[in-house]
């Protein structure tokens, strides 16, 4: 067979076959795996760079946001939006409103503090708490005083106060018999009450504090 084909031909065939095998080895065992590995490495780097860029953009945006929003945030904190809902503090604040509005007085009752599940508060790592304050026996002769008091709560009370309910009922008319009592504030022509929610954002309790019950309800007369 060797003589039929010829030794030279066989050598050339073997050389060509060997070169083919060498190229196959180079391509499939060296170049192609290298391409796969380098492609993966490049993709990983591209992804890391994109991620890093996003992080830098975010951090820059956050810095700008904080610098721009900090006065607003600090004003909210200063005005009490981040304060806990201490009942004596509440009483003092209501008295401050009463003085501002200029009415004789009223009584109030406040519910237990409750947590409102709130997504944006959670995102800030805070919790939104709420107390419901019911104001009644408002010492004003006419309904105008009631509205003034409600406006005072909305504007002067620490943020955030939100009137959710009010009730005003005419209870009498001005007559010669009651004019003196009305002047002295011993009698009113309206009976009224309103309820407002007091909401603030506070830090969530630490695990050991979470077991302690919230501040209980409270009532008083400023």
């Amino acid at each position: 067979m060797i003589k039929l084909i010829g030794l030279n031909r066989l050598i050339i065939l073997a050389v060509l076959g060997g070169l083919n095998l060498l190229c196959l080895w180079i391509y499939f065992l060296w170049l192609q795996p290298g391409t796969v590995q380098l492609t993966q490495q490049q993709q990983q780097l591209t992804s890391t760079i994109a991620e890093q860029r996003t992080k830098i953009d975010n951090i820059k945006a956050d810095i700008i946001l904080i610098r721009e929003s900090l006065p607003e945030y600090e004003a909210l904190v200063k005005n009490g939006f981040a304060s806990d809902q201490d009942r004596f503090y509440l009483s003092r604040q209501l008295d401050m409103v009463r003085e501002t509005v200029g009415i004789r007085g009223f009584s109030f009752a406040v519910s237990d503090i409750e947590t409102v599940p709130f997504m944006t508060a959670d995102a800030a790592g805070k919790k939104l708490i709420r107390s419901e304050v019911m104001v009644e026996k408002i010492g004003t002769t006419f309904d105008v005083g009631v509205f003034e008091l409600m406006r005072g709560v909305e504007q002067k009370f620490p943020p955030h106060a939100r009137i959710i309910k009010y009730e005003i009922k005419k209870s009498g008319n001005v007559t010669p018999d009651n004019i003196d009592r009305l002047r002295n504030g011993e009698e009113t022509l309206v009976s009224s009450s309103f309820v407002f929610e007091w909401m603030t954002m506070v830090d969530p309790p630490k695990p050991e504090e979470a077991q302690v019950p919230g501040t209980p309800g409270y009532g008083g007369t400023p």
Partner: protein
Amino acid sequence: MVQIGGGKRILLLGGEGVVIYAPRAGGVEREIALSWEMPNFDEQLIEILQNQNASKSVLVVFDGSDQTYRKEESIPKLSPIDRPRFVRRKLDLAFPAYPIRASFAIKPPKKKGLQLSGSSLPTSYLFVALPETEQIERVSRALFESGVSVSGFGLLPLEAVNLVESLARKAFAGEDHRPARWSVLIAQHETGGLRQVVVKDGALALTRLTPAGDSGTLGATWAEEVTQEFHATMKYIARLGYQSDDGLDVVIISDDVSRQFFSDSGLGVRSFTCLTPAKALKLAGFSPFGSDKDNFGDVLHAAFLSKQGRLKSPIRIPSIHSIMIPRMMVKFGYAVLAVSLLGLLYLSQGAFFTNRTLDQDIERQQVQKDMLDREYQQEAVLFEQLPVKADVVKGVIQTKKILEANTLPVEGVNKLLLKAFGGDVYVSSLNYAHTPNQALLLRGSDPTVVAAPVDPADRGRIEITFRFGLSADLTLEQKVLRAEKLQRDLIAVFPGYDIRITEQFGRVDRDGAFTASIDEAVAPSSADDLAEIKMEGKPL
């Protein structure tokens, strides 16, 4: 052993010996002529085959006198499947004593004009047979021993058909010459004898090989012998149907001296020409070879076949075939492996450059990443120095905004109510309730309750109920009409609200039961009579 470039070596095998021609630019060159009588013929042939032209494959062309031809025209109309079997059987019957047989279809001559009928299948066949001579065996052994590639085995007269036609056409071109149906090429061959190839309508009609006479292959005597042999050929072709109207072109390969002894009167034809081998080669489109004193025509066939590269009518000689096929397969293997190698090299270089580009990209990206890492670290330091975390600032401000959106200043609602009331309505009682956005609804103090996303458009609902009175001077109907007007005014001020009179003055209903007394004096209604309106809707 690897053949690069065109051209084949031609080994002409005849009664006197063999002549080998090697391809060269524009034609062929004669390598050697070996006589069968030489004592070391086989060794010399092997040696010659293994010389510098060994890389070219060898085409063996038989020019001996042993070949036998028969034209078979009685082939019935058979299907393409049955026809080859039938022809094969006919061939076996025609030449039972010859071991080497072949058949070739003779295509009918092309006729001018449109042919409306007729099958594409050939109607006649040329049967060929030759014995397995010792000469063929010796050449086969030499081919085997030398290791050269073999391209095939052919018969010179069959392969010369196109050459004869082409040469005759070119030799008689431009002489106001009517194309002839018959052409004859007469040449003295170095392999032995005077070869006459007669072609009719593009197919081999007749071939004759007559041994050279004792007087040599040049001069007047040779010309005389050629003339006599041509006359004998004329007799044969007359039997084959030749008529003078058909036209006959005769080309004689002759040296410059001998040509003068040929004449049209002597040959008995008017259309004849004598060409030296060199002129014939030139006319056929090859480089001239040899001298004008030489009259051997083998070179013409060798040049033609070397350029053509393949045989028109290959014959299968078992001893040569068994050498040719393995060596051809090896050549095919070379081609496959070479193509595969080229493909792999192409792929490899592609992958190599891709990897290099990727490497460069990675290097560039690594630099970029390092820069970004440094930038991030710098920004992170700045961020850490801020008094509050961005999430806290964002969350607190966002929460405050949502709460504000869900807080309705009492004054705003009151102003709208006063706008609708007018001056004649006095309100006895007013109840107001605002139910906030679903997200702000208390779900208990359970810290595990998941907060719902806030819809900024949802500001909850408002419910207002008020009781009101009118002047006591008005009749009940006037009061009812005024209450209905107030309802319409409220609808205009609070669009989209559900506003209903839940209690009408005097508790009357326009469609319900009604009790009254008729008197001349118009009785005013009671001042304590009150109506009630209830409103519900989304905050404006």
